[in-house]
């Protein structure tokens, strides 16, 4: 019964709504991967910073990779919020986890990080989780959670 109602809901989603969710998901994943790789490249140039004071991080902004990376992560945040306006958190979280796979692969091919067989296994498991989540309806709630407002 429960599974049937989920399936029905997926079938009644309009093509426009499905397309919007897919485009936003692509934007979230792509901007997450590119932004994080740029931040990583930049922080390797800037060197070690461990501090409780945000002011200490300002010197990181002298590096162009960090500046561009932060700009791209602003796009990531806006597209993530737009996606959360249309879809469940428990849909968005696993589906956008494909970014982890792409970040690991980019780390391997661009930053020359080593990927062991265990990590390749992890990449396969995440991909399976992404596929499973993608099969569920994007949204199962109607309106906002009133008790939180």
């Amino acid at each position, binding site marked *: 019964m*429960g*599974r049937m109602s*989920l399936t029905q809901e997926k079938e009644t989603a309009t093509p426009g709504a499905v397309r*919007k969710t897919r*485009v*936003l998901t692509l934007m979230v994943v792509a901007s997450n991967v590119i932004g*994080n*790789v740029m*931040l*990583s490249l930049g*922080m390797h140039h*800037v*060197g*070690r*910073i*461990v*501090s409780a004071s*945000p002011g200490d*991080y300002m010197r*990181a902004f002298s590096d162009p990779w960090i500046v561009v990376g932060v700009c791209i992560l602003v796009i990531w*945040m*806006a597209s993530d*919020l*737009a996606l*959360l*306006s*249309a879809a*469940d*958190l*428990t*849909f*968005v*979280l*696993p589906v956008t*986890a494909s970014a*982890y796979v792409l*970040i*690991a692969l980019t*780390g391997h091919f661009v*930053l020359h*990080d080593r*990927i062991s067989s265990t*990590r390749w*296994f*992890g990449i*396969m*498991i*995440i991909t399976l*989780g*992404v596929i*499973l*989540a993608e099969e*569920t309806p994007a949204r*199962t*709630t109607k*309106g*906002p*959670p009133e008790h*939180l*407002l």
Partner: protein
Amino acid sequence: MKWLLVGIIAVCNTIGDVLNTAGMKRQGEIENLSPGTLVRMVGHIFRNPLVLGGLGALAVSFFALLSLLSIANVSFAVPATAISYLLETLLAKYVLKEDVRSRRWAAAILVAAGVALLEW
């Protein structure tokens, strides 16, 4: 130090994502993907206390991530934040009242396990 930063990132990520989801559902679903609509959405966020709180939590998480990236590789740092997956799924079910069934639990568990494996 690495794992303290991972803990800060996980807790702040969870609080931030739950608040952002509640806030964006309150604000309403965006109608289309035109640049004007997205800019208006961002403008409305500045009057949305739930999203502002969520972004505050994510900002703390971001600075902790910057620290972590300065002492660890990206392929350790980003996957390590995935500890929050199961906690976020629990809060989505009981706080956000999402319909979380076996397939979504399986997806969350697989992603969390896979991300943990990435650290090896």
